[in-house]
């Protein structure tokens, strides 16, 4: 037992000492269906020419943490490289019957619900490993959800720099001011991962965020 503790401690110290400089783990967090994977796909398409994961209107489409290694962004002579980590949406409840409304049969809906619970637990566990986090919120939804507050609180406690993104600003109901009012201490960027609106301003903020993570 004591040996195991010493070994783990030594591993943490040495992995920290030899950690590659510039290797930033950038996490995408937020509630389900806010557009985390859509934004990750937009970044990957813009700079790598390929998608990261599948998107859907059904909540909990992403049920496992997915990565893209060495994402290199070059813009206006500036360069950043990071590991992009897209996480399943965090929620406090899951009802398999919600999936059945999208035409899924009972058994498949139950399986999806179970996978979604594992995904949420996985997302929370990954919080410790992030160097910087983009919180993706749906700009048409109420930002005062406790899940959003809990995620931000946990990042602050871990001293991880945060950028808040209000996605879906192409929709009429979008209210970016509401997000800014809810989180006055953070940078908030409005964008549409679907149409690309607001992406230039987002990349500017992303450069600053990744810099703060180093």
């Amino acid at each position, binding site marked *: 037992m004591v040996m195991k503790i010493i070994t783990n401690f030594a591993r943490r110290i040495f992995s920290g000492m030899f950690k590659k400089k510039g290797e930033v783990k950038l996490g995408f967090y937020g509630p389900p269906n806010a557009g985390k994977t859509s934004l990750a796909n937009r970044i990957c398409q813009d700079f790598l020419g390929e998608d990261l994961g599948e998107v859907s209107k059904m909540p909990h489409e992403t049920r496992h943490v997915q990565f893209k290694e060495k994402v290199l962004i070059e813009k206006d002579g500036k360069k950043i490289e990071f590991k992009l980590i897209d996480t399943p949406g965090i929620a406090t409840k899951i009802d398999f019957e919600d999936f059945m409304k999208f035409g899924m049969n009972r058994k498949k809906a139950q399986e999806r619900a179970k996978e979604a*619970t594992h995904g949420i*637990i996985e997302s929370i566990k990954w919080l410790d490993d992030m160097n910087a986090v983009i919180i993706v919120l749906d700009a048409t939804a109420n930002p*005062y959800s*406790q899940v959003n507050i809990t995620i931000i609180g946990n990042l602050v406690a871990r001293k991880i720099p945060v950028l808040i993104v209000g996605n879906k600003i192409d929709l009429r109901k979008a209210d970016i001011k509401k997000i800014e009012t809810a989180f006055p201490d953070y940078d908030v960027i409005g964008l549409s991962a679907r149409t690309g609106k607001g992406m230039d301003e987002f990349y500017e903020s992303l450069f600053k965020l990744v810099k703060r993570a180093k």
Partner: protein
Amino acid sequence: MVKKKGVEERKYRGELMIHFMPYSEIARDDALTRIKKIMGLVLQNKIIILQGRLKSEEEARLIEHTMTLVGNLPGFQGVEIAVLSGETERSMFENVRRNIAKILIGEQDAVTIIGPASVVKEMKRNPKKIELLLKRR
């Protein structure tokens, strides 16, 4: 005694139960005990009004614990949770005083409402109020 408790619970089955939990009830507990106490009440289909709030890390652990139960307990859909905190604009001195108090006695000038998702349909929160939408029974 246990039998009596069971009889009492059966008597109130189908009724809406609200449990007020003063902060003193969890003040000396570690994170796991706090979560177990809260989840124990949630599983009895009670809505808990907790004086104060949990730490962010405890809230995250509460979500993890909830998801473990959703995956393993048939019929359990999770929880609805909302916190109304007394955060207002304060002077620097007041903030320092409040932070010291927070370290010493926890954050008590807040109210946390936690309810089972099978009872509470939605908790609508804005900075100044929480609205509870209950499911029809």
